[in-house]
């Protein structure tokens, strides 16, 4: 997923123009040149370990029930159809999309405001606020289930997707604020000041000058909020008792804990759960690395 130019082969010395791109000869290896087998052997073994589980889930999802073939042939989509309609994954999917998108927007907007304050102002409680952000990294949502449940019950929000959105947002916020403030610091303040001189107020100046430059960072933060809300399991399990309100991970858990586990359905459900995440990562790949390297440098 990560591709950088940082470790490309050093160009050969100029006096050998015939082979400018060749690897240094044996015995004069560059520092980062290990013997080939020391790379390919362990990597190959690790690759097998990594890929077999992926193959296995595809195999179970695509081959007919009862088949023991190690190749998914003939391919069948029965499992997907069954999970989608009989096991209500269509509904779960819809709920998960709602929760994911709502969390994405709420997290990004609130974190953008907070991140801007941290990046551009010096104010009294700044240090305390940053310490609070850091401390929340150590407060696990799982340990707060009981009081959170009580709060949402008092707010009459149990069994509504909004409760899950709020819980996911809150636990996603601290890291998002820290990251976004790092991205904003990378945008020169003088650009904003120039906009004010030209007659913009702070908000329009921010919208016209800063926001476009923040795009990679916002995409990185937003997609992380989405993926996190999509994958997370415990809040949805606890706050949503109505089956029609459940999300994909809860649906998967139901498939796993059923008395007689339907492996084909489980595999198909797992693939349905993975698709949006894979799409998000494929879409954001090019922004992700620039976003994070920019945010991490000064974060």
């Amino acid at each position, binding site marked *: 997923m990560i591709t950088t130019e940082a470790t490309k082969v050093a160009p050969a010395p100029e006096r050998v123009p015939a082979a400018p791109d060749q690897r240094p000869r044996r015995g004069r290896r560059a*520092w*980062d040149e*290990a013997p080939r087998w020391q790379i390919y052997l362990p990597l190959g073994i690790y690759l097998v370990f990594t890929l077999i*589980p992926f193959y*296995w889930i595809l195999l179970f999802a695509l081959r007919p029930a009862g088949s023991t073939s190690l190749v998914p042939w003939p391919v069948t989509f029965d499992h997907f159809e069954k999970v989608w309609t009989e096991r209500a994954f269509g509904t779960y999917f819809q709920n998960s999309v709602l929760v994911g998108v709502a969390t994405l927007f709420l997290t990004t907007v*609130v974190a953008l405001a907070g991140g801007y304050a941290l990046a551009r102002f010096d104010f009294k409680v700044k240090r305390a606020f940053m310490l609070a952000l850091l401390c929340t*990294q150590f407060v*696990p949502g799982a340990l707060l289930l009981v009081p959170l449940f009580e709060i949402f019950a008092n707010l009459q929000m149990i069994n509504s997707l909004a409760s899950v959105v709020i819980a996911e947002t809150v636990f996603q916020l601290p890291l998002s604020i820290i990251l976004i403030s790092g991205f904003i610091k990378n945008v020169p303040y003088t650009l904003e000041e120039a906009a004010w001189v030209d007659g913009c107020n702070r908000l329009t100046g921010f919208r016209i000058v800063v926001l476009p430059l923040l795009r990679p960072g916002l995409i990185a933060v937003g997609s992380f909020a989405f993926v996190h809300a999509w*994958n997370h399991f415990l809040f949805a399990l606890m706050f949503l008792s109505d089956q029609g309100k459940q999300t994909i991970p809860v649906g998967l858990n139901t498939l*796993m804990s059923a008395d007689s586990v339907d492996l084909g359905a489980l595999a198909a459900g797992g693939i349905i759960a993975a698709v949006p995440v894979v799409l998000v990562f494929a879409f954001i790949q090019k922004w992700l690395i620039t976003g994070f390297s920019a945010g991490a440098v000064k974060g």
Partner: protein
Amino acid sequence: MAQAAAVAKPPAPPRRRRASATPRRLPYLLIAPAALLMLGFIAYPVISVFYYSLQNYNPTKPWRNGYAGLDNFVHAFTDDPQFWGTLTFSAKWVIVEVGLQLLFGLALALIVNQTFVGRSLGRALVFSPWAVSGVLTSAIWVLLYNSQTGVTRYLADMGIGQYGTSWLSDTSTVFPAAIVADLWRGVPFFAILILADLQSVSKDLYEAAEVDGASRLKQFWHITLPHLKDAIVLSTLLRAVWEFNNVDLLYTLTGGGPAGETTTLPLYIANTSVDAHNFGYASALTTVAFVILLFCSMVYLRLSKFGGEK
């Protein structure tokens, strides 16, 4: 965390200019939504956990509810063998899991940091499980460990393991089985963190070492490792806290079983509160977990130099 309370109340100097253009009030307005959310849904719940920990609080047994003093804590430490079991399992789980992740993650990062044909593809493939969630990881490994049709059956054909029982339902195999499932996803994460740091090592150092005739092992020991030290210490600590807290994987993979063999403290807390409705006792256990985490976060803050004055 309580300091965040001050955030919501700006000193509000009386000024004639529009609020949106008043820099003194603006930062407070900007952090207000985040601060209020964190105050209401993190700070307040944390405080109420401490409050509940001193109460008998069980919605299914309302006649017993009321102030309990330290009874919950005394019960946990003196006559709840399950508590000690989950505490030792938590420690075992975190140490083995994070230790192995660090070891394999470092090795993997060093390998894919080399120049070789197909590196981009290789990296993308070995890092891919990183994007897979806890529940989905469980679903995948439930398939792999299935006693009839799982990969474990084919391993049994080769003499590794035995037929007929799932690795997840046998007390002698469930621990390594869960560890392997979590490593599958955790090693790439560690490798990515370490790789990012590896790329910032100056190449001049290696070239100088090369000229001086240092072996690659020596270069690793004297250049690479010292450079990575801070990143390794911090990411290991963060990861340890994360592995301690995370319940998604074990909850769905083993449910804490068989026979409570794989119940971590947070999982025990979740079971005590959600299934047994023993909210008071669960809160006391949560308080114990907080103390452990507080200790870790203090170590982290010290190491990350957050408290240091410049």
